[in-house]
């Protein structure tokens, strides 16, 4: 399509260029003198009116030459034209002030007189042999001072040789045809004889009588109108002119200027004069054409052509010139983009290799599968999923910006990398000081004592509001039937794998529920089980950090909550710290949730309960264990953490070591406590929700950036393997982040 449009646009330019080329070609066909004349005549028009006017001028001149003037000149017999040139050249060279005007005047005069002269019809000059004709022409040229006299001389001479007594045609009827025929025949023979011109004695031919000539001129009218020349005549005339020289003509290297235009225009005649001179033997003495000059002329013509282009033509020409450049530029950009893409692929491959290496190391250490990091990143389609302000802020979900702003998800910034290394060093140190303990397990959240916990994502629901809010958010399907949870609650577990104290033994995984809670979960319908198990884990992690309403806790522990309410049952089990219920929940998820669901369960826990830079030791430990139990491994968990928060996850906490605590600031310690955060100023709570600094002035970019990360974590596509209930929880969390952003930006009161 584009090509067609381009071609369509190029058509006018092509026509214009073709026209310019045609004019140029026609100019090239002229002699140099003619071209110079045309230049002198038409260049002023070009400067005054533009290149188009120049072309028109040249075309007009050439057309006029090819019609009116050329009709007269070209229809002359070769002998007449030769005589015309000879006579005028003689006069010009002998005149007092030779020049273009004299030459033109001479030719005009001679043509005028020649037209009025009688045309020779008989005798047939073709009857003469070439040598005879050449001698006769030489004699007549010498003896005649005009073309008319030359013609009559030739007629007389021919009559004397072939048809004695033959007279010139005095009735004024055109005899051009016969003359042309003679000329054609003449040149046909001349082609064969020009190499060896015969010599004829001038005395054999008598000069024409001037009186006869004058008489003929007096009685002859103009019998050669332009329109009387038939195409056949033109053809018959043109033939010999094109490639033959007259017999005995003193022209050496070119034909006798068949295109020299004896136009009435004096300027044109001037050019003819020069052309004739160039056709003369003197032309051999001209200096060779200067290549530079020709190039300059060509460049000048090109400039004129370009300058003469009109608006659309210029546009098309510009397009034609620019298109290759654009293609080259596009090619360069494409190549650069491909190079960048290839580099990115190489980098991703290296990351993949890194992850696989890590997984392999873990597999070697544990002898088990450590999980694969091939979880598809569904963030690409993030914009269409969120509604409301999320849709109005599509750029907030640009992963790459986040990665760049936070040192990269895939490429941890030097600071966290250095920090991780430092933590490992600390771990080694701690291991050396801890007999009978485990190497590689200590961790800190900030090696330099800088607070890394700046808030809690659920600060606004901790304490008084936490339990109720979480209950409400989890009760999106409240009223769904459950199968007698109280009855299940009254059941007691039969056995537990916790009975085993032999850590070297590897008992087979438990495949049946060991607690009443586990059996209760399985008693629900299949669609409901996953929701209940996830809900239990949410409460387990939240309540583990004491994010519950004390009154609700007391009520639930006292009377078991609302009868038949599965949420109350779950909360009560959690508040009772039923580790067997926890174990059964983990087992059930391990057996029944697929890998993607297990990954998204971890994501959901982080979204709902973990705030940026505020992962408590309990959360860290629990997430790491669940990741292992779910078959995902540390590599996948840390990858998910980096995707969610843009920074590496702290290593496994060692809260039993004072050295570990020494690297945790009091401020950080304080911020792990959601209840403490709930007592802060509302704006500080919003800061903590978005992971923003708690002190100092915030600019808009910081707030938006913090919201970007928080909103990204809540993206529904990150939970598409879970149910509507879990996605609804994430969306509610997103709304809280929105509110925090708006309040901090001052959008809402």
């Amino acid at each position, binding site marked *: 399509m584009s090509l067609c449009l381009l071609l369509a646009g190029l058509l006018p330019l092509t026509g214009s260029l073709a026209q310019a080329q045609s004019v140029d070609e026609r100019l090239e066909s002229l002699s140099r003198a003619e071209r110079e004349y045309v230049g002198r005549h038409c260049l002023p028009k070009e400067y005054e009116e533009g290149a188009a006017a120049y072309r028109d001028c040249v075309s007009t001149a050439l057309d006029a030459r090819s019609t009116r003037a050329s009709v007269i000149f070209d229809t002359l017999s070769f002998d007449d034209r030769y005589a015309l040139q000879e006579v005028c050249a003689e006069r010009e060279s002998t005149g007092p002030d030779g020049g273009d005007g004299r030459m033109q005047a001479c030719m005009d005069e001679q043509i005028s007189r020649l037209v009025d002269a009688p045309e020779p019809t008989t005798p047939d000059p073709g009857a003469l042999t070439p040598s005879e004709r050449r001698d006769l022409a030489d004699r007549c040229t010498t003896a005649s001072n005009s073309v008319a006299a030359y013609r009559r001389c030739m007629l007389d001479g021919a009559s004397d040789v072939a048809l004695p007594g033959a007279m010139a045609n005095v009735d004024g009827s055109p005899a051009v045809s016969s003359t042309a025929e003679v000329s054609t025949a003449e040149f046909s023979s001349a082609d064969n004889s020009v190499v060896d011109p015969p010599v004829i004695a001038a005395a054999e031919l008598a000069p024409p009588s001037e009186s006869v000539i004058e008489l003929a001129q007096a009685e002859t009218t103009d019998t050669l109108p332009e329109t009387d020349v038939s195409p056949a005549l033109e053809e018959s005339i043109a033939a010999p002119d094109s490639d033959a020289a007259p017999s005995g003509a003193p022209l050496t290297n070119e034909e006798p200027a068949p295109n020299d235009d004896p136009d009435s225009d004096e300027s044109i005649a001037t050019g003819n004069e020069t052309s004739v001179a160039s056709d003369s033997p003197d032309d051999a003495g001209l200096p060779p054409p200067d290549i530079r000059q020709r190039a300059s002329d060509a460049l000048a013509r090109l400039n004129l052509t370009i300058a003469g282009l009109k608006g659309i033509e210029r546009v098309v020409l510009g397009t034609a010139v620019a298109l290759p450049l654009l293609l080259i530029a596009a090619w360069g950009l494409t190549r650069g983009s491909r190079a960048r893409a290839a580099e990115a692929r190489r980098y991703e491959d290296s990351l993949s290799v890194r992850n696989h290496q890590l997984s392999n190391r873990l597999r070697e250490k544990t002898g088990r599968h450590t999980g694969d990091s091939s979880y598809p990143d569904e963030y690409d389609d993030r914009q269409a999923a969120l509604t409301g302000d999320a849709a109005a802020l599509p750029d907030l979900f640009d992963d790459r910006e986040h990665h760049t702003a936070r040192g990269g998800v895939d490429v941890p910034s030097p600071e966290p990398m250095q920090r991780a290394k430092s933590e490992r060093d600390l771990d080694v140190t701690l291991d050396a000081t801890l007999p009978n303990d485990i190497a590689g397990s200590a961790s800190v959240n900030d090696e330099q004592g800088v607070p890394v916990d700046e808030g809690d994502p659920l600060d606004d629901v901790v304490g008084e509001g936490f339990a109720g809010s979480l209950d409400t958010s989890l009760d999106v399907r409240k009223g769904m039937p459950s199968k007698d949870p109280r009855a299940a609650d009254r059941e007691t577990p039969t056995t*537990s*794998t916790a009975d085993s104290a032999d850590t070297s033994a590897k008992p087979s995984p438990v495949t049946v529920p060991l607690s009443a809670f586990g059996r209760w979960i399985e008693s629900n319908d299949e669609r409901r089980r996953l929701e209940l198990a996830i809900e239990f884990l949410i409460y387990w992690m939240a309540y*583990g950090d004491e994010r519950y309403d004390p009154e609700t806790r007391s009520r639930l522990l006292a009377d078991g909550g609302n009868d038949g309410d599965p949420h109350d049952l779950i909360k009560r089990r959690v508040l009772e710290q039923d580790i067997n219920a926890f174990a059964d929940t983990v087992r059930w998820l*391990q057996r029944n949730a697929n890998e993607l669901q297990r990954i998204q369960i971890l994501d959901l826990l982080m979204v709902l309960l973990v705030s940026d830079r505020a992962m408590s030791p309990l959360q860290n430990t629990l997430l790491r264990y669940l990741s292992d139990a779910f078959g995902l491994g*540390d590599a996948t968990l840390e990858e998910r953490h980096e995707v969610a928060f843009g920074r590496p996850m702290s290593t496994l906490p060692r809260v039993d070591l004072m050295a570990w605590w020494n690297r945790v600031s009091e401020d950080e310690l304080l911020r792990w406590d959601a209840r403490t955060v709930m007592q802060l100023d509302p704006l500080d709570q919003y800061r903590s929700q978005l992971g923003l600094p708690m002190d100092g002035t915030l600019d808009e970019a910081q707030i938006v950036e913090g919201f970007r990360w928080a909103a990204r974590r809540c993206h529904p596509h990150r939970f598409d393997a879970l149910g509507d209930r879990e996605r609804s929880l994430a969306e509610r969390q997103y709304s809280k982040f929105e509110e925090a952003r708006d309040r901090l930006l001052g959008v809402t009161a």
Partner: protein
Amino acid sequence: MRNLFARFGIDGSDISHLERALADSAVQPADMTPAEVEEVQTLLSGVERRKHLSRLHLQYQAIAASIDTLDGADACDSHRWRKRIVEFEVESGERPHSP
């Protein structure tokens, strides 16, 4: 991880009990050096530290209760959990931190 509460024979959930136990110089685990005991006492003297330690104790007990999940074909063991939970394994049905 060390179960400091168990080593000192104290109930982590009962702050008053803990304080009394820490103040009692006679309470000293046999497998701990005086320096280690002093370190633990320093650690447990902090309310926030003690609180988080208590919470972690529960999690390790829960992990111990579900450690069999790591025996599954698709499970991982990135942190050698079995060794970490040695001091936190509880009897079946026991709820050590139940109110």
